[in-house]
């Protein structure tokens, strides 16, 4: 690892102050940052450890939602009884990710900010616009089975790796961010960015901004929700395709539906087109499939990842079918 200075922030002001200037990284559980620093991909001068900050609780919001501190560990969030009953897809998404050891370390903030697992991003000898702007993208003509098919650009097709974020996107979560100029609230939909011609800029965070919490707005439909992850092993592997879905059906018609996809896009992908088609319509397999196909119609596939479009349609359909069984 390139040498760096380590600062353990005693309070949030100190953390934000320490993060002014370039070359500063916040440290949560370290499960992504330490790996990337060891690989020489992240090369900060200063690492500000934020795990001492008091953002490790989950609180009720007056609105009926939950406010999750950015330092809540992934395992603690997954085990929270309120999350499990009101937002089961969040718990399931977390439990389908990484391993128990990693979940015990990883924080919510770090999970939001984790970087792609594209093999060309990880390999120094390969060209990657995300790692080295302007270098080119070796994934385009290389192994791209794990890469994205929606929202990609000719500069980058790397997929976002997080499971949690897919559920958060489906729930219209709000990310609470603290910077020099105070606190702001960023909707999940705007938090991650599509690559365009600047794939190195991945989020809406300004340099030095700290994630302090994530808010889950109330979502009655989410009580009937599910996170389905499809991957190459039964456990401990990133998603090829994942689906976070919530469904509310009354009198045979869909009254609320939330749908987001993982593994297929450079950001957690809210399937707004599919949701639009489904809302108000029947909760049957044909409708599920048509909506899924419409969502995937804009996919840009390559040799290695063409199957993802089919897999996404199949997984969306299957997940909604399972949820549809519990009409309320």
């Amino acid at each position, binding site marked *: 690892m390139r040498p760096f200075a380590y600062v353990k922030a005693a309070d949030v002001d100190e953390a934000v102050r320490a993060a002014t200037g370039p070359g500063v990284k916040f440290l949560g559980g370290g499960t992504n940052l330490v790996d990337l*620093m060891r690989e020489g991909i992240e090369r900060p001068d200063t690492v500000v450890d934020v795990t001492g900050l008091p953002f490790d609780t989950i609180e009720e919001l007056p609105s009926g939602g939950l406010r999750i501190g950015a330092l809540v560990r992934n395992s603690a969030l997954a085990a929270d009884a309120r999350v499990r009953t009101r937002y089961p897809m969040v718990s399931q998404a977390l439990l389908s990710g990484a391993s*128990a050891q990693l979940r015990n*370390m990883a924080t919510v903030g770090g999970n939001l900010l984790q970087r792609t697992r594209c093999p060309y991003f990880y390999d120094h000898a390969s060209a990657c616009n995300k790692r080295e702007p302007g270098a080119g993208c070796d994934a385009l003509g290389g192994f791209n089975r794990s890469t994205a098919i929606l929202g990609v650009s000719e500069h980058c097709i790397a997929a976002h790796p997080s499971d949690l974020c897919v559920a958060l996107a489906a729930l219209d979560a709000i990310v609470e961010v603290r910077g020099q100029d105070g606190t702001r609230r960023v909707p999940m939909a705007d938090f991650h960015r599509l690559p365009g011609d600047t794939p190195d800029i991945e989020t809406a965070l300004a340099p030095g901004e700290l994630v302090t919490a994530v808010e889950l707005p109330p979502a009655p439909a989410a009580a009937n929700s599910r996170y389905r992850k499809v991957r190459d092993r039964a456990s401990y592997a990133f998603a090829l395709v994942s689906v976070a879905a919530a469904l509310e059906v009354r009198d045979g018609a869909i009254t609320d539906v939330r749908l987001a996809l993982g593994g297929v896009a450079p950001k957690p992908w809210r399937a707004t087109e599919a949701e639009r088609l489904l809302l108000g319509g029947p909760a049957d397999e044909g409708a599920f499939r048509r909506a899924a196909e419409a969502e995937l119609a804009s996919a840009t596939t390559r040799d290695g990842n063409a199957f993802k479009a089919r897999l996404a349609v199949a997984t969306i359909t299957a997940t909604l079918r399972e949820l549809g069984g519990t009409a309320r």
Partner: protein
Amino acid sequence: MTEIRMKVNGSVESLDVEPWVSLLDALRERLGLTGPKKGCDQGACGACTVLADGVRINACLALAVQYDGREITTIEGVTHPLQEAFVRNDGLQCGYCTPGQLCSAIGMLAEYEAGMPSAVTGSHGLDDAEIRERMSGNLCRCGAYNGIVDAIKEVSG
């Protein structure tokens, strides 16, 4: 260099480490505790699993400085019926993943007791499927998985 103090296997150790030294390297190279293994240094195999305040973590992705003041248990500090159960059920071959499997299993049993769910949690208690899913962060290339599950069942049941 930063001076850190950790309670390791019951005794307080203070050591000077650069901030880029991992907890795993601090244990193995500075404290001579080679029980935790380095199989990938990327959080992808689980051989480095240790307990931090009783919670299982991957020591390879932990910076030692971040664990200042914490209590660390490595296999050298473990005395648990699981160890004999592993031998009896042949839950090991080459033995390289074994310390990590054991520490992980100890942490896992505590998590289960505390009511923490897993991706397959249903109504059937700590059955084979539960154990396998919860232990999936520990690879065993020798393929001793059956024996490991049996050992854990023997001790938990």
